[in-house]
């Protein structure tokens, strides 16, 4: 775990600012309610920030404005019905939400999807990652004030969404994964179109690199802001690009591939030693590029065959407990499924990435300026549905 000098310095600076805040000038604090209706909160997260001037003394996220109680709802739904719900957890990368749940159920049922289904699953998994992170790349820029990149992101994400829709029928809520395989096979011509979409995404990444990442103002706004040391990030449960940006070389796609075929292709896990907002942006940009490469390689080698294993008509999952986690666009997402041999899961614990990722904010926001709250929240990248579930 490399904690660079810069990271340590920024960390010390942040801590010092924390101690300094109310000593320098004895002023009365102000409480600023950021959200629940605020452009930077991606929905309805609310941050109650106690300010001294423009400096944050303490910040406390308040959520639940969108709590839908999926863990309770899942208990009264059959296994195929649950995927309908969990599509809506991280609504920008919906397909990726289905995968760990289906894999957990498959593990309990001891069935395995045929290779073609695994392949297509992985492709769609990566496509939803691209669709998700593409929007982040534009959104992060809009958080620090540049308006145009987010339109580029919406424009080019469309190509990926079109492909997801052409294959699954749903733009945002595919509900395509089934226990034992997939709902349907790919339509003709899909592979070629997806390749083209991947080319467009790579062009988009180049544009973002020049428009946002290389921009001196963007760097001034993000470098050294919101530094997360690796060990602290881990103890808060940060995952995905957030922790890789702190130098932790950990990616479940590579380290424990379960049910997905990431181990069949040649790709790289990107890390950044700095742990600041810029590093998180940079890692995600590289990840998007890498994902297009993964998709390209997978498209070359989709095996032929069925897309559905033999499963009973009425799915009753044998009693047992299973936990499967995958490296979703936002980080580690896992489902702890407890079954009692019924058509309903007895208990589903949804481990969503954003919930843990955002839990570090009270620690992270101490001593920063108001604009940096937005930068840090933007760079942590959460989806409200993924926090509130």
């Amino acid at each position, binding site marked *: 775990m490399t904690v660079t000098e810069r990271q340590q310095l920024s960390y010390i600076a942040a801590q010092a600012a924390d101690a300094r805040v109310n000593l320098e000038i004895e002023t009365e604090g102000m409480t600023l309610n950021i959200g629940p209706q605020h452009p930077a909160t991606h929905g309805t997260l609310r941050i109650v920030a106690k300010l001294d001037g423009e400096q944050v003394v303490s910040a406390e996220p308040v959520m639940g404005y969108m709590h839908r109680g999926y863990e309770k709802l899942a208990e009264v739904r059959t296994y195929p019905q649950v995927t309908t719900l969990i599509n809506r957890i991280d609504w920008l990368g919906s397909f990726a939400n289905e995968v760990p749940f289906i894999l957990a159920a498959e593990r309990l049922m001891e069935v395995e999807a045929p290779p073609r289904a695994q392949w297509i699953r992985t492709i769609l998994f990566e496509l939803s990652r691209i669709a998700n992170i593409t929007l982040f790349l534009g959104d992060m820029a809009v958080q620090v004030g540049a308006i145009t990149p987010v339109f580029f992101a919406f424009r080019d994400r469309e190509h990926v969404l079109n492909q997801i*829709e052409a*294959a699954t029928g749903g733009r945002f809520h595919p509900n395509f994964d089934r226990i034992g395989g997939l709902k349907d*096979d*790919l339509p003709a011509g899909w592979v070629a179109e997806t390749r083209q979409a991947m080319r467009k995404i790579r062009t988009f990444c180049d544009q973002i690199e020049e428009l946002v990442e290389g921009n001196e103002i963007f760097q001034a706004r993000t470098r050294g802001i919101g530094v997360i040391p690796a060990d602290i990030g881990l103890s808060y449960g940060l995952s995905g690009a957030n922790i890789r940006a702190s130098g932790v070389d950990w990616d479940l796609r590579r380290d424990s591939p379960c049910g997905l075929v990431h181990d069949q292709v040649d790709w790289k896990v990107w890390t950044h030693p700095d742990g600041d907002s810029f590093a998180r942006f940079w890692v995600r940009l590289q990840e998007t590029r890498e994902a297009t490469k993964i998709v390209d390689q997978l498209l070359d080698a989709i095996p032929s065959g069925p897309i559905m294993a033999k499963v009973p008509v009425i799915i009753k999952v044998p009693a047992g407990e299973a936990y499967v986690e995958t490296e979703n666009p936002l980080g580690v997402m896992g489902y702890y499924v407890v079954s009692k041999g019924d058509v309903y899961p007895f208990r589903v614990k949804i481990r969503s990435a954003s919930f843990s990722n955002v839990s570090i904010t009270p620690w992270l926001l101490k001593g920063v300026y108001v604009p940096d709250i937005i930068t840090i929240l933007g760079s942590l990248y959460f989806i409200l549905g993924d926090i509130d579930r």
Partner: protein
Amino acid sequence: MSLVPGLVKGLVVTGSTIVRTVFPKRGMRTMMPAPSKGAATVQYPHVKEAPPTRARGVIALHEGNCTACMLCARECPDWCIYIEGHKEKAPPRRAGGKPRQVNKLDRFDIDYALCMFCGICVDVCPFEALFWSPEYEFSEPRIADLLHDKERLSEWMETVPDFEDYESGSVAKKLKVPPT
């Protein structure tokens, strides 16, 4: 760090996007501005993008195939399908045979205000009575009007496209849409 400042590169990116949007054909070679071709957006009510054939726009009902077996209503995660039916004697298939007992569909309503467009009902239907149509223009000013009955659902049957061919390597059976 490259020699060209990132600020300038950014301006070039946005500037060239302006040029590409206004002069979509290979930059400035043809000097006719045609932004409506260069833009990524379409003017919706005038121009419509065709959704893919698989798009889950609205559920269409092939009434003749429905036997009111309730499977879709039971499997619906949102409980948004309402079916009522009764049994009826139908004339025999062949002359001289016994009269058959058929289930007649009285009511088949889908409450699209509740529907999550998951497609489970279409999947579980054993008699091929439900189909996805890419039709998406069925918004209503009042939420109660989103409860559509079987007549309306049957109208959408005409917009159901044929199933596409599968990508090479597939062994799945291609399905057919029954003629309305």
